[in-house]
Every structure is written in structure tokens, then in C-alpha cells.
């Protein structure tokens, strides 16, 4: 704001009538990924004041979830952060399981870790790819899109049946177990597709002078400011704050794996990019360790209150049929109470606050989206910079409108 004041004072001193130009960026704009809108007051190319506006993709996740059963809400959670839908499913299932007080089987926990880490890798690939498209480096987008297609074709589609909107987790486990040969394909995809793509993009960008000049020093933030604004995830770690829920809270079986958490220094766009690239490599490490130690055993807990009975029994046994009917029509019966459960999604802390009054469906679910405080912090990151820097910062902060608007 002081920029605006200084601008007006300068204009008065020169005895000129001057007003900053108001530029509307979005909501349908190639650089604002999907539906974000900025109203920028400009003095030349410098941004004096930035007002972000969103809500163009508000799809009423909360209101819809109030009229559906617990398992039906899983399909709505896919569409929150639609570039890494498996992580949203896992976070929701963990929250409801915390409310029910059940522990899932070991195999289920390992599988959840593996699919979360694959989702994290593809999310970072989209972020960096689209960020680079906005800066003009289109090749990286194609380099990163091929691994995404491979992960979809060989891993996610055989596993869940669809490419994007997966809906794979259930309360008390997963919808079904891994198909045969999935582990081998996963290792193959990592070795033959993901690691070479990361190496290619690294070779193109990290030491590239144009990239460095475009991103270094652009949109910096201090640790204190980042914490006050509620930043989490790679943007916070790029600012130098070592907060990673996988290490600090150790949910699922993350405490058994050996991985590092990359921390940046200045919190600018270049740091955010470097943190994401390194996180992808660390995710590959976690997946390799998890695939090696993947235990056998059942994937769902053996509790008739939560899992559907097997089809064999449903077709032959009346009690199993009634159990199945009750599960589908009424939903899983969950105790009364409220719970908040957070996981480390690709963008930061994804929290689910669930209020239950018993019964088959939730009373209220609030999703704490990681992008919300990041988008709120955009004025702080961009004011004083230029419009071209706004584009670079917006891409690096990775706002997904589905999550922001819910």
C-alpha cells in the first residue's frame, strides 16, 4: 500500500492528475490456471495493490456432503485437488477412521503411502510444467506430461479404473487390493519414465540463465510472514521453515522410511521450484522403500461394521445380504463427535474437520485447503513486483481452484 501512497505523492509533487490503472486479470486467462481473478492496480508495470478474487468454481462440497453417506463423500473428495486425487481420498478416509477409532491393516497403510507419494509426484509435475508454460518454456510441460500419462495408464487406471477421479479409499481400507504385477509396473515406471523426466527437466532449467533471472528473487517471503499467514507445504519449506507433517506427525507408516525434507532459503519462486524438484526425488525414495517392504495380508479390516462383505457371502447368506444392504443404503454408522485430521498433501496441510451426529452421513465436513492461505498471501508476494512476476509467482504457488473454492 505504501507504493500507492508514494505514487500519488509523486504525482502531486509534479502537479499531475494521476491515477493508477486498474487491470483485471482473469477469471478466464491462460496464466491464471482455471478460474482465478486478480484486480491489479498498476503504476506502469509495477503492481501497487493486488486484490485476488475467487469462488468461480465453488461447487458446494460441504453442502453436498451433508446429504450423502460417508462412502459417497469419497467421490466428492476426488474433485477437490484434481491433479492428485488419491491424496484427498486418503486424507478423508484417515479422518473418518480417526473418528471411528479404527486402525487399518499394515498393507493398507503401505499402499496408502505409495499412492500418496505417486500423487505428490504427479502434482509437482503439473505445477512445474504449467509454471514453465507461463514463463515460455513449453518443452518442460511435454517432458512432464509423458510421466503423468504413464502413471495414469500403467498404475492408476489398472488400480482404480479411472484416470483422474479415483475414489479408491473406503472407510476401513481400500476399495480393492492391488492388481497382480502392479509393484513391478510401479518400479518400471519410476525407473524408465519418472526419473529420466526429472533429469531432463533439471538439465533444461536448473542452470539456465533465463530461468534463474526470471525466478530468483521473485516473490520472496520471510519465515515469520509465512507462518503468520498460515502457509504450509512447499511454499513454507522454501521460506526456510522445516514443517512437514510426514516427519512431524508421522501418520500412516511414514516414520519407517528414510527420506529428507528439502528446505529453501529465501522463499522465492526459484526456491519453490527447487523444493518441488527435490521432493519428487525424495518421493521416489519413499516409494522404492515401501515397495520393497510391502507386506502381504488383507487390505481391509475384518469388521462387519465397516467393510462390505464379500460377494460370495452376499449371494449365499442372508445376514451378509442385509449387512451389504445396510451399508449401501444407510452408510457406515459412525459415532458422535468431531475430529480434525491433517495430512501433508502436495501443496501443504490438507485438513478435514468432521462433525458427526452419529448415523450414516456427516453433519458437517470442512476441508482446510492448503491453497487458501497461499492465495491469500499473493498480495504480499506480488505487490511491488511487476506483472510478469505475478505470472511466475502464481504458477509456482500452485493454486488449484477445485481445492480453493471447494
Amino acid at each position: 500500500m505504501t507504493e500507492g501512497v508514494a505514487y500519488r505523492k509523486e504525482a502531486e509533487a509534479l502537479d499531475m492528475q494521476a491515477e493508477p490503472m486498474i487491470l483485471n486479470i482473469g477469471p478466464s486467462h491462460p496464466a491464471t490456471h482455471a478460474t482465478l481473478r486478480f484486480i491489479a492496480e498498476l503504476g506502469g508495470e509495477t503492481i501497487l495493490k493486488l486484490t485476488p478474487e475467487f469462488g468461480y468454481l465453488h461447487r458446494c462440497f460441504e453442502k453436498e456432503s451433508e446429504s450423502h453417506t460417508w462412502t459417497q463423500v469419497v467421490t466428492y473428495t476426488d474433485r477437490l485437488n484434481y491433479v492428485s486425487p488419491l491424496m484427498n481420498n486418503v486424507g478423508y478416509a484417515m479422518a473418518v477412521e480417526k473418528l471411528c477409532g479404527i486402525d487399518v491393516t499394515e498393507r493398507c497403510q503401505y499402499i496408502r503411502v505409495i499412492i500418496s507419494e505417486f500423487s505428490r509426484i504427479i502434482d509437482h509435475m503439473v505445477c512445474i510444467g504449467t509454471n514453465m508454460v507461463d514463463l515460455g518454456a513449453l518443452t518442460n510441460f511435454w517432458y512432464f506430461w509423458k510421466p503423468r500419462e504413464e502413471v495414469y495408464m500403467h498404475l492408476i487406471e489398472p488400480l482404480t479404473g479411472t484416470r483422474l477421479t479415483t475414489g479408491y479409499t473406503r472407510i476401513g481400507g481400500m476399495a480393492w487390493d492391488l492388481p497382480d504385477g502392479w509393484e513391478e509396473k510401479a518400479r518400471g515406471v519410476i525407473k524408465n519414465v519418472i526419473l529420466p523426466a526429472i533429469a531432463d527437466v533439471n538439465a533444461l532449467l536448473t542452470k539456465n540463465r533465463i530461468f534463474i533471472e526470471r525466478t530468483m528473487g521473485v516473490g520472496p517471503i520471510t519465515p515469520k510472514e509465512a507462518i503468520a499467514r498460515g502457509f504450509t507445504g512447499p511454499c513454507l519449506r522454501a521460506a526456510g521453515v522445516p514443517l512437514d507433517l510426514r516427519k512431524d506427525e508421522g501418520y500412516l507408516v511414514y516414520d519407517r522410511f528414510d527420506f529428507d525434507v528439502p528446505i529453501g532459503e529465501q522463499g522465492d519462486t526459484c526456491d519453490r521450484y527447487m523444493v518441488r524438484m527435490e521432493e519428487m526425488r525424495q518421493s521416489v525414495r519413499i516409494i522404492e522403500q515401501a515397495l520393497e517392504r510391502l507386506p502381504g495380508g488383507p487390505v481391509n479390516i475384518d469388521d462387519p461394521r465397516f467393510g462390505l462383505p464379500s460377494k460370495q457371502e452376499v449371494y449365499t447368506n442372508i445376514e451378509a445380504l442385509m449387512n451389504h444392504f445396510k451399508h449401501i443404503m444407510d452408510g457406515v454408522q459412525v459415532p458422535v463427535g468431531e475430529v480434525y485430521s491433517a495430512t501433508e498433501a502436495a501443496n501443504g496441510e490438507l485438513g478435514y474437520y468432521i462433525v458427526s451426529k452419529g448415523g450414516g452421513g456427516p453433519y458437517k465436513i470442512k476441508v482446510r485447503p492448503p491453497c487458501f492461505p497461499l492465495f491469500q498471501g499473493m498480495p504480499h508476494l506480488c505487490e511491488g513486483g511487476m506483472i510478469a512476476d505475478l505470472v511466475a509467482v502464481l504458477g509456482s504457488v500452485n493454486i488449484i481452484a477445485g481445492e480453493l473454492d471447494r
Partner: protein
Amino acid sequence: MAVKREKDGAPGFLTTRFEALLAWGRKYSIYPFTFATACCGIEVMGAFGTHYDLSRFGAEVVRFSPRQADMLLVAGTVNYKMAPVLKRIYDQMLEPKWVVAMGACAASGGFYNNYSVLQGIDKILPVDVYIPGCPPNPEGIIDAVVAIQKMLETGAPRAAERWPIKI
């Protein structure tokens, strides 16, 4: 199109050849405007990617300005806040233009039946092709582009010509 017709209104030999040439040129150079709002936007990016290459069908030049595009590809949920923006973009496009509604949300609101989601973009725009799916496979987008090409080739009437639909 400024082409000469015979006295009884039927096109003559040269006119039909010319129109066929025009249609051939048009159908292999569709410029899409991807109005990508939500998850379908990711599948649109997949369709333009290297695996499901849409440039085989000529529609690879994506234009982000409505003045330069002729196919509006609405991918994703449109809600009441976004609807005026979409209508304005549609109005800014120049004739002839085609509209493709991609995905369940653009076609009919999807599984979002609530106070904020427009139940299908055909409430405000004439739609030529609907692509079912949530999200549709990129092959669905290719199918839609081929359908638009067929419409161009045969000169089929566009949805805009019977808009607005009065019930």
C-alpha cells in the same frame, strides 16, 4: 458466405466445389478456445499432449483469445458466478462458432445439484456436441472434434441456429 447461387436458390457446380473446399479448409483448422475450469481441464491438457495427440486432427492451435478462436470447448463445472463470464466470452467470438460441452458438469451440472452450479451450459449457450464422462477420456475430446469436423463437412445446421429454445 458470399457465394453465388442459381436463380432458384440451389448452388451451382462451382459453388458446391468452392463450398467443399471451404469446408475442407475449415474442418482441418479448428482453433479451440479451451474454457477449462476444473478437472476436465486436466484431461484437455492430456488430449493436447503427446499420447492422445489432437494435432493429428488439426485442432492443435489453442487460442486464448475469443476473437481468434472458433470452437469453444467448455471443460469443467460452470457456476452462477462464472456463467456471465462464459456468456460474455461466447458473445465475443466471431461467427461461425461451435460449442462443445465437455464432461458431465458442463452438459448438465454433473453430480452437483446445488445452489451454486449451473445445471448445464445449455441453459445459457447453444451447444453442438456433448462429451459424456467425468472426466471424459481424451479420446472423447478427439471424438467431439471429429464430430464437429463431420458437421463442417456436411454443412449440418449448428445449434446456434435453433437457439434460444422456447419450451
